[in-house]
């Protein structure tokens, strides 16, 4: 009986084998989930410069959703800024997206923390909806090929954790 069960199991493994899609079973569909293509968006930063995510292929991106009223978001910003400064020359970019703040509030926060990366305002919550943001902060680590490698819901992230993920993106 044991032999029959194990033989049936082995046959099922062979029968249910997934087509090879580059090491993952989900293929290249778009979704705000690890292993999927990052949903595209176009937003402006505080200086009016336009950023389209799909135009940033070739760069590793940390997409961080935050708000000025969110304590863990504020707590992790200095660590994100430090990691950005250390890896920007290697092709790392941070896009910090706020859907809940006015431009003035976001600008004051960026000035207070001396944030060196673009702060994008998402007043219509287009990007927040595309990424199904339900709590802040939420961070997406996106490979140069545009695939989400890691999603971190909640915070604050530690500097070591951010560095580990960024190094993973730049490998």
């Amino acid at each position, binding site marked *: 009986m044991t032999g029959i069960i194990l033989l049936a199991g082995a046959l099922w493994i062979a029968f249910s084998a997934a087509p090879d899609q580059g090491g993952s079973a989900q293929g290249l569909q778009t979704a705000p989930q690890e292993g999927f293509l990052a949903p595209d968006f176009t937003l402006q930063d505080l200086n009016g410069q336009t950023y389209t995510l799909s135009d940033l292929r070739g760069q590793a991106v940390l997409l961080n959703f935050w708000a000025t009223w969110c304590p863990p978001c504020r707590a992790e910003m200095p660590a994100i800024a430090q990691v950005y400064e250390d890896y920007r020359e290697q092709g790392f970019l941070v896009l910090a997206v706020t859907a809940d703040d006015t431009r003035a509030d976001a600008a004051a926060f960026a000035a207070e923390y001396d944030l060196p990366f673009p702060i994008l305002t998402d007043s219509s919550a287009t990007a927040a909806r595309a990424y199904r943001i339900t709590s802040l902060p939420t961070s997406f680590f996106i490979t140069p090929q545009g695939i989400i490698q890691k999603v971190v819901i909640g915070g604050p992230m*530690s500097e070591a954790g951010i560095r580990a993920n960024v*190094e993973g993106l730049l490998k």
Partner: protein
Amino acid sequence: MFPILHLGPLAIQAPGFILLVGLWLGMSLAEKHSLQFGVKKEHISSIVLAAAFGGLLGARLVYAAEHPDLYLTHPLSLLSLDNATLSVWGGAGGALLGALIYGQRKSLPWAAMLDALSPLLAVMGVALPLANLASGNGYGAPTNLPWGIELWGATRHPSQVYEIIAAAFILMDTWPSYGIEPPRPAGRTFWRFLAWTAGARLFLEGFRGDSTLWPGGIRAEQVLAWGVLALSLWVLGKLRETEAAKRESAPIASRERQT
């Protein structure tokens, strides 16, 4: 998907909350029935605590060992509350080690202990796919079947629901009953639970959309489950042989005592 539960001003991460409730329910069930397996109630909570502590320690230390340069320059990050900097395998190894150390120190009977912990493991077997249903993890492969669910941009097998149903059956099979003799031989409850769980994983992994693929599209989780199933069936076979040998020798022994 319901990743966040909003209770008034509180936003609770649903998957973590479900796992915590599962742990509490599972421990309550295991403690309630531990004596049936010949294990003291307090050993259940103590061994779970030792496993949790070992798991947390192992998860962080292995993660740090994987990124030694980062933690040598930022050693305080070892104490960070950042749950994204934990290693799953480190956690599993640490939990096992924590439980082993506690069991050795208390000289616990391992087979009986594993039996007594099986209800807890079976409840967690239900809680885990439920947490995955909340977070959207553990999603299914695309399908055209009428019961497919919309998730991550496609109609998919509700693999989390399949796993909840399978785990519920396994929980019913593992559920301890009052008023019966302790299962003999010791260890049978655990290995039976493990065999069912590995069998369910082997079958249901075929409907998952997030499997780790080996060359030829072979799903790594299925191969691992097949190995665990083979081991479990082998141990169950050995336990049956031992039990049969005992039954055969028992009448002889009693006859010898009478003479």
